[in-house]
């Protein structure tokens, strides 16, 4: 190879690398991390990306250069030089990628080990996934439950994830970490939030027709605010009273599929609960009995236009009879007034 052609090749490579580099640099690829773990994942991401850009620049330089330089007119019947191989080159391009992927592997394994390290006193929170709702329980705050995940900032948290029906997956893009929820198994996810804010929780494992709507919110709060929230909420839920039914409605994820009281958060997977009195006329039951049956045995009567086998059949066993009474009472009270 002449010196001139090496120069041209290098120039093309630099241009290709610069374009790829600009795409990598100017596009905001990753969300701003909100956990220590996501920060480490970002490091691996950029380490691998830089290697990829170098290889991309090299290969595209050779292709572009060859297409420009070695192209011949259609009537050129000659053949190229009969080069069958070059052992040195072949060893080189086997060994160099092997070294690169080894480096990637070592870096990844270290980050993985660090990200899985819970530290001394992690906070445990239970995550329950079911079609198509998330709920969270805080065993260290007297069984407090919520449908939005509240986390104290700068504290190592282990989520213990359960699935009640099919596979789901817990993901907050800003947290980086992701973990499937598997029926019959408790899986865990470790995060250490680093900044206060509200972040979207998404289900990322196809779980049925409401999959795209199986979302919730994670709220990272300053430690003191978190403690205050936990003690206040804990008292409200344990005393019960007038709000007990509403608390059960909220903490069991009913609103993920059903709309209740206006368009605040229209959910369309299941029937609109504001129209319960109208639906009850279908099977001709009293409103109270109809609501109770629909919670415990959802497929006994399915409103027209909605498929069967969607609503979990687990509420009959997961709710105590006291809780069920409170929930039915709450639904009757809130629909009889404004319903159809």
């Amino acid at each position, binding site marked *: 190879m002449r010196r001139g052609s090496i120069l041209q090749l290098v120039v093309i490579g630099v241009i290709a690398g610069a374009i790829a580099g600009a795409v990598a640099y100017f*596009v905001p690829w990753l969300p701003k991390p909100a956990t220590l773990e996501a920060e480490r994942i970002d490091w691996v991401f950029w380490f691998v990306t830089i290697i990829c850009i170098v290889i991309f620049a090299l290969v595209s330089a050779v292709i572009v250069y060859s297409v420009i330089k070695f192209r011949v007119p259609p009537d050129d019947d*000659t053949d*190229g030089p009969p080069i069958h191989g070059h052992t040195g080159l072949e060893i080189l*391009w086997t060994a160099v990628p*092997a070294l690169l*992927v080894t480096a990637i592997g070592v870096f990844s394994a270290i980050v993985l080990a660090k990200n899985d390290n819970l530290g001394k006193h992690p906070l445990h929170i239970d995550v329950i996934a079911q079609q198509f709702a998330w709920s969270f329980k805080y065993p260290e705050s007297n069984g407090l439950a919520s449908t939005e995940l509240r986390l104290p900032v700068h504290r190592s948290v282990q989520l213990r994830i359960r699935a009640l029906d099919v596979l789901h997956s817990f993901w907050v893009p800003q947290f980086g970490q*992701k973990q499937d929820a598997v029926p019959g198994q408790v899986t865990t996810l470790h995060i250490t939030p680093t900044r206060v804010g509200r972040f979207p929780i998404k289900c*990322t494992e196809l*779980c049925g027709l409401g999959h795209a709507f199986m979302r919730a919110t994670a709220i990272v709060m300053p430690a003191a605010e978190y403690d205050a929230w936990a003690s206040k909420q804990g008292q409200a839920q344990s005393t019960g009273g007038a709000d007990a039914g509403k608390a059960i409605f909220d903490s069991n994820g009913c609103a993920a599929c059903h709309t209740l009281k206006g368009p605040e958060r229209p959910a369309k997977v299941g029937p609109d609960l504001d129209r319960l009195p109208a639906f009850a006329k279908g099977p001709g039951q009293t409103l109270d009995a109809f609501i109770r049956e629909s919670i415990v045995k959802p497929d006994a009567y399915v409103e027209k236009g909605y498929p069967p086998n969607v609503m979990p059949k687990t509420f009959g066993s997961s709710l105590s009879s006291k809780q069920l009474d409170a929930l039915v009472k709450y639904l009757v009270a809130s629909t009889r007034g404004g319903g159809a």
Partner: protein
Amino acid sequence: MSETAVGHQQELRHDAHGGPPPVRGWRHLIAPGFVRALWMAPLFFGIGAGIVVLARLWGGWHPYWNWWIVITVGALTAAPIGFLAGIGNFDYWVRYAIGSPTRPEDHSGHGAYSWRDYFRVNTDHKVIGMQYLVTTIFFLLAGGMLAMLVRAELAKPGMQFFDNQTYNGLFSVHASLMIFLFVIPAFAGLANFAVPLMLGAPDMAFPRLNALSFWLLPIAGTMMLASFLCPGGPFANGWTNYAPLSTHQPLGTVFFSMAVQWAGASSIMTALNFLVTIITMRAPGLTFWRLPLLVWANFTTSLLVVIATPFIAGSQFFVMFDRIMHTHFFDPSQGGYVLGYQHIFWFYSHPAVYIMMLPGFGIASEVISVFSRKPIFGYRLMAVSLMAILVLGFSVWAHHMFVSGMAPWLRVPMMITTLLIAVPTGVKVFSWLATIWEGKLHLRTPMLWALGFVSMFLIGGLSGVMLGAVPIDIHVSDTYFIVAHIHYVLFGGSLFTIFAGIYYWFPKMTGRMYNEKLGKLHFWLTFVGFNATFFPMHWLGTDGMARRYSDYEPKYAALNMFISIASFGLGASTIVFLYNMITSLRSGPPAPGNPWRALTLEWQVTSPPPIFNFDEIPQVVGGPYEYGVPGARHAVLNGDRAAVAEGEEVRVH
């Protein structure tokens, strides 16, 4: 007798391939064909349904007539066998088994003399290759239309055209058709045509098995499309059909599970056929180290298929057993193991990725060497790297499961093997680059597709390395980054090489040249449309858009609209391809025997090839890619042999 032996032989062949005697009147009912299939399929459905009812009567299970089970056993299992028997796939074997005189060419003559012959059971590998390609292109169009519907729904946030279940069905059927009825069988079709020719063989080792493997495909494809007619909608669990969602979903799911059985059986039979053909039917002198790389690629692919495909069959049987036989493979409350499904499924479906890629490597090697006018750089290492991918491919399945909740210790070993696969794959890319280096490049349409493949597959390979690194994978699992990655490897990789292969062998298959300008237009439209559609998906994924979502946050609206518009352009580029194929087939200029001046054996015969490929068995004397080597030959055929015998110097490599 004045006839020479050769002349006599040829005449016999002409008698033999005249096809079956014409069928008239009521005899249509018992002669092999669609008329017989029309009554045999319902008959077998009845038999299947009868077995179900009798078994339920005997067991005392109510109700005796259960539609789910009757459909599964009668319509999806028994009726297809009736259809296959009706069109005549089993005639020869049945006659042989019951001791009747067999008719070697009774219904399955070699060659095709009118378009009708392509709709009959035919044992000619060239006809079967065409049947495969036309069928798979049909399913490419069907799958592509579904993708357009998916993109239409995703153009704006919120729900536009479909409900969630239908949307889930659209992308599930799209993926299943593209994987099981386009990429895998399209490669099998190209290889069906090319491999026996490249080996110097008159046909595949088992021509009747070959015909049967083809006829399973329309069954599988019809089944997948027919799931749209099911009560409850089509199967909507993604092409991965993960349990326990799949054991609870409506009837459509069974259509997926059974279609995979039929397509899988087709794959396995074809793979066995390729293995035996390649091992036993190579022309004299054609040693393994002289095989064209396409043959090597199909040899390794067939090994993958034979070893891996039974696993997906097993996974789908387990799902169906859970659904209709009250087993509990994936029901944890009864001791089932949910992750077991994923382990079994990916033990097939990761090797399946290589089943969908290695034949493409083979096609790229053929095309790049021929249109660079240079030998393949590092031929032996190219073949060895195929074998390395084959072996490593079986040790990486759990990299699809890094976030699945499997044993955590399994992640690092699986990451190491996954990253190692980049090494043999890199060897192949660098060898292609070294092959075009200092070559005499002819940028004809097949070459454009092959170079497009190398650059697009490079991007897919690099994003694959990123996915191999566990921490990155944890972040981008089940996001649009995955969607981008698989389309860069399966569209930019597999589909680009399938197009390269179709354009490359089009003259050989049809005897006509395609339109070069339209071919290049097709390439550039696809190349631009493809990148505009799929590259932005990387960003969507890393930023946080989950896959399989019918609705998304408004902040992704602009990018999704852009992607949807680009994808419609990409879809429209197919029209150029179809127009080119149809007009060239009807009125393209006649193709010479060897328009590309290639050395491999299929180009040494007429276009299209004679009915039994070679009038005389060729003698292979050298490697397949000896471009630029003075006086080198890959094989000597027919009259040349005399010249060789008389001492003409032939360089042997």
